Every structure is written in C-alpha cells, then in structure tokens.
C-alpha cells in the first residue's frame, strides 16, 4: 500500500513539473474554462484531461499541484486516478471521512483497491485519524494522500 501511494505521488510530482514546463503547448489546462468550454482536444486527450486534470478547482482546499500531463505509464493509471480524485474532491471526501461513510469514501476505497470486507475497518480508521489526515487548513491533496498512507501503514 505504502509503495503504491508513494509511486502515485511521485508520478504526480514529475508530471506536474512536466506540465508546468509544458504549459504553453497544452490545451488541457487545469480549470473549468478550457475543458468544458473548448472541447478542442482529441477525445483521448480529452478523456485524460477529464480524468487527470483538476477539473473543478473551486471545491478544493487550495490545491496547487493538481495538473498532470496525460502521457503516463499505464501501470500508474489507478494511482493517477487516485491523485486526481482526491485532488478534485477534497471537501466531499473530508466530509465523508469525518462521518466514516459515504460515496466519496467508498470511491477512495475502490481506488485504494481495498476489498469490500475490509472497508468498514478502513473507514473507521480514517475517521479516527481525521485530524491527522486533514492536518491543517492549508493541506494539499498530496499531503492528504501522504497522511492516509502513513495512517494505513501504521498498522
């Protein structure tokens, strides 16, 4: 688990850097404008953009590094999905986590590949550690993922 998340985060950072360097070329930038209102990209990249770009930034705690380019090693797909899901749904996920249930939490479990029968324990653990996961007001989704990983690997 720990390694999976770490890999995901690493992939995200590398890609975020690449994206910054490449911003001029890219039409699939972060934010609602380009994606929804332009639709000028190929479908493949649109799908990438849809999945992998912070598509609706106003719902986050101020995530700053949510942009990813779409070229990726296929094995990281679900980790990138995880990154973006958490990045795009910070608030709703926080809400569910504090309650210990809900669709956003279930989706997190799906992306973490946790089997159904182990999920109640996972939810309880995340809820109990809420303050450690959403550790401060300016937490980013990277922090959240790091913290989740820490909590889960703590046994």
């Amino acid at each position, binding site marked *: 688990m720990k390694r999976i998340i770490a890999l995901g985060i690493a992939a995200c950072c590398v890609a975020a850097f690449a994206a910054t360097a490449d911003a001029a070329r890219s039409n699939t930038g972060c934010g609602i404008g380009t994606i929804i209102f332009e639709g000028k990209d190929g479908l493949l990249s649109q799908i990438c953009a849809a999945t992998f770009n912070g598509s609706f930034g106003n719902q986050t705690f101020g995530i700053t590094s949510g942009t990813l380019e779409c070229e990726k090693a296929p094995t990281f797909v679900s980790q990138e999905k995880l990154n973006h899901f958490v990045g795009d749904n910070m608030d709703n996920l926080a809400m569910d986590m504090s309650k210990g249930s809900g669709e956003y939490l279930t989706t997190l479990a*799906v992306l973490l590949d946790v089997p159904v029968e182990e999920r109640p324990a996972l939810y309880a653990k995340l809820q109990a550690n809420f303050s450690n996961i959403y550790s401060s007001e300016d937490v980013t989704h990277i922090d959240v993922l790091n913290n989740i990983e820490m909590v889960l690997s703590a046994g």
Partner: protein
Amino acid sequence: MVLLIRALPLLFLLFLLSALPAAAEPPPEASPDNPYLAELLENARRAELHDAPYWHTLLHYKRGLFGLRSLVDDPDFFLAPDGKHDPRAELEATLRAFFLPPPEEGKHPLCRFVARYHWLKERLSIDESRLPVPGCEPFERLMEEIRPESVTLVFPTSHMNSPASMYGHTLLAVETSYKSDLLSYAVNYSAITNETFGPFYIVKGLFGMYEGYFSILPYYAKLQEYGDVNDRDIWEYPLDLSGAEIRRLMMHIYELEDIYSDYYFFNENCSYDLLFLLDAARPGLDLTDRTGWWVIPIDTIREIERAGLFRSAAYRPSKSTKIKYLASLLSREDRREARAIAGGGRNPEEVRDSAIPDEEKITILDLAGEILQYRYMGKEIPKEIYQKRFLNTLRVRSVFGDAEAEERYAIPAPPRPDDGHRSNRLALGGGAVEERTFWEVRLRPAYHDLLDNEDGYKKGSQIIFGEAVVRYDPAGEKARLHALDLIDIVSIAPRDEFFKHTSWKIRTGFFRRTMENGRDYVVYDLNPGFGRAYDGGFPGIVYGMIETDLHVGGALERSWSAGAGASIGFVGSLTGRWKAHLYGRDIVYGLGDEDNRFEAGLGQNLVLGANSGLAGEVTVIGERDETRVEWSVLLKQFF
C-alpha cells in the same frame, strides 16, 4: 480604397503563396483502380447501403424542408464535398478514404470514423488485411483505458434561477470497471459559449448561432456542478444496453470528437443530440425521429423509457436538498446551533461538550458542515474562513464515530419526474365575464403552471411558453384570440433560516384589454417582478412581490402605459389532489395612459389523473373605476 489598391499586389502574392503548397503537393488519393476498392464500391451500390437507416443514423441525416441533409454542420465530419446532403457520395468517399495510406500525423479516416468503418466492414464483409491500415488502434486503446461496462441516463432537474436550465438537462454517464459511480465518465452535449446570460444569448441560441460539441468529464465534476453548486437534484436511469451496444455508442462518441453541430435551444439541443448516441448504440431505435420541433429533456427521457431502455430510477439529492432534510431532523434549537457553527458564532467544541444526546450532536455537526460547504460554493464566505471552520467542524465530528449516520440520512425520493404530467396541454371550458358567457380553448406547448399537478415538478415553479387562449362568444358568434402568453415564468422559492432565496416572475405576451369605450383590444404586456416567499408550516407558500408592468398598443391613448405595484398570494395544496392559488395585485400606471388596475383571484385545480385536471377560476378586476367579475371552468388534458 487607395489602401486597398496598394494592398492588392500583396494580397495577390499572399494568395499565390497560400495556393502554392496545395498545388505542389496534392492530397493523397486512394488509387481509383484498386480492384478491391472497386469491388466494395460495387457491392455497396448493389446493396444500396447509402439508403440503409443506420447509415443515416451515423451521419445524422434527417429529412427537412429542403430535402435530406445531415444535422451535423462541421465540414470535417464529411469526406465527400457534398456529404452533408448526399448519403451516397459520402458513403463512397468514406470507402475510398479507407484505402488511403496511413497519414504521417493525425488519424486515418478509418479511425476518425470508426463507427462507420465497423458498420461497413460488417455489411460488406471487408477483409481488413487488404486495407492499408489494420483497424483503429487508438480507439481500442481508449476502450482499454475506459473499459465501459454500463451506461446511465442522467437528468439534472431544473434550476429555476437560471433560465437556460429551466427544462433540465440530460447527459450520459459511462460506468467503468471501477465499481464507483463517481468515477464514471459524463458524456455531455452542449453549446460552446462565453456569452453570459442576456438577450444575445437567447437570440443566438434560438437561431443556431452557437456550435454544440460533445465533451467528456469525470462524473463527479458534473455532480459538483449540478448538485453541489446549482441546487439541482439529479435522477439517474440505468440503461439496458448490451456490451456490443455500448461499444457502438463509444465508437460514435469517438467519431463526434471535435465535431460541431449548430445548436438550437428548441430542437437541436443538449437532449436531442444525445439521442444520436443511443440510436447509434442500438440500430433501429430511431429516437431522433420521435421528437417534434420542440425538444424538452423530460420528453426525451419518456421516449427512451418507452423504447424499453430503462425501468428503474435512482435519486441523487442536491446539497440544498440535503441541508433541508438534515434540518428537518432537528429541533429549532439544534438548527440554530448548526447555523451558529457555520456562522462562526459558536465553536463546534461547545456542541461536543453540551448535554444533548450524541445523535443530535452528530446531525448538528453534519448539517453545519453542509451549510459551510454550500455557502462557500455560493461565494458567501471567503476561503480562509471557510477552510478553518469547515475543518474544525469535521474534526469534532470525526470523534463521534457513528457509521450509520449516512443511512439515517437516506433522503426519501420524491415522485419521479418522468412520471409527472406531460409537457403539452389542451384545456377546454367556458365561463363568463359579468353576464356574458364564453367558451374557451387553451393550447400550451410547454410546460407547467402553479396549479398543475406538482408530482415530478419543482414546487412553486411555473414555466409557460406560448400559451394561446381563444374565446368564442356565443352571443356575437365570433372566436377571438384572447391572450397569447409568450413567456410566463414564476419562481416562488420560500426563504427559511438557511436559504435566502429571491422569488421572481416574468411575463410577456399579448392580452385583450377592455378600453374606455367598453371594447377590448390586444395589447402587448411586459410584467416582471421580484419578492419573497415563506413556507408558513401551513400546507402552502405565501409570497409578496414588487412588480412593474408595461402595456403597448395602438388602442391605448398614448400607445403605451407603464406602472408599478405589488402582489401578494398564497399557493397551497390542501389535499394531494387539490391545489389553490389565491392572490391580489394592484398596479398604478403613472406613465403613458394613467390608470389603476386591481386584480384579485382564486384559482383551483382538482387533479383527476396523472395527465388531467379540472380547473376553476374566479377573478375580480377593477380598472377605470369599474369592477367586473370573471369566472371560468376548464378541463385540462396533458399530452
């Protein structure tokens, strides 16, 4: 002019330059004498494939006033120069294009039009090994990436405050092998515009001056947009499509990538173009032939249901519905606590340490969290304050455990919108103005008024488009247009401790006004208003509005008359089957023709069935120091 003459040689040179490369490098042509191509062309001709309904589905060909044409307007969608109008030429050009050598960049036509390719391949038993490119690898990669497993029709209901969304919207969600709806892909057709709401927007939308494109987003982004930000409850209808059908649907989406059709609000709109995807998925479905020149999202949903594509529906409440529901579980005191936490006047820790039962504390904290999120998204509180309060609240909340909260919060689904009354309405009846009786026919293409059966519709909303009222006077033996409501929208949104809605109305159209000489004339009327409404705990809503009114007509002394005034009213549903609207309204016309017009009325409706009702109305109208009483009884039928 001088400038132009001077510029001419330059222009000429530019023209030459731009023409040069084309002349030097003609576009690659498939060899016309490729024997296999000739054979396929011949077979296609013999089978008259260009007339096959599915070819017309894939190309969006429809018969219009001026003959057959495709509804797609993007030239890139056609391979033949006259492909928009000529199915045969397009089919032959498509076959020829399959024989083009692989391009250096971009997609091969076989790939760009992958649904066409697969259909032709099947119908003509095309031997892939005899083509220059072996199938469409990017599409297969995409399918591998998405792994679509099922498709759901999604209906975000209307959002009254935005006129563009009044009828709601439809989109598709493509579920993947991830077992989570949030990770589905939302396939959406919409006009591309930067225009903010305004007359421009309406006019351009009416006349197809925007381009409509398909787009794909994660479903959760759509949920945020509709459910969290826009207060729109969402309905989901899981479609009964096979794997092969879903694959065809994906192929057609793929073909329509980056392709525009002119977008028309009324008929070629978001809901209509979505039907092409389903038609492409299941040959012979032909949903796109079942609509009129007026496409309302909910009507397309009913057609899809009639075609047997779904049975069940799932309800996904919006954030504001959630807030209202959580609030309904709490006492007034507790609701105040939740608001105080959201407002910053109280620390969540104080609630934690108070003496009330845990279950109440949990609901208070959950409600406070929802309110905070709602207000932040509505830009009512700045980010810094929001982050702090929100996280603080959730931190305290997380201490309580209680994984059952979500189940306790299961919000009961209201009646399904597709079970609501249909969109068109015909009403027949009669009545009298003072002693003079009349017969009346009312015809309305859309959509819902305050007294109609509310099931499946938004409470307190009225959206009328193009209602014509014709009255027949048996004494004078003549029928006349009595009124034509072009637009008559009322949004009565009750305010409460959480939501500070503004109610509003706008009506414009023509109506017959009695003049001083006792005769009546048609005048144009524009009547906007806004105000407040409250749900008094009584089974109904009371409202009050400030209104202005403008009349224009040749029969008026100065051709126009404008005034301001107010209205108050009560809309209630005393039993499930009986609705009433009691109102009073007074407008003082101080500009143009001066007058005072007072109106009070009681309208009632008895629901007879899902699509029928009996309405009765009594109105007292006072103008120019005269008062008259009008009543009518109408039998209403929706269809």
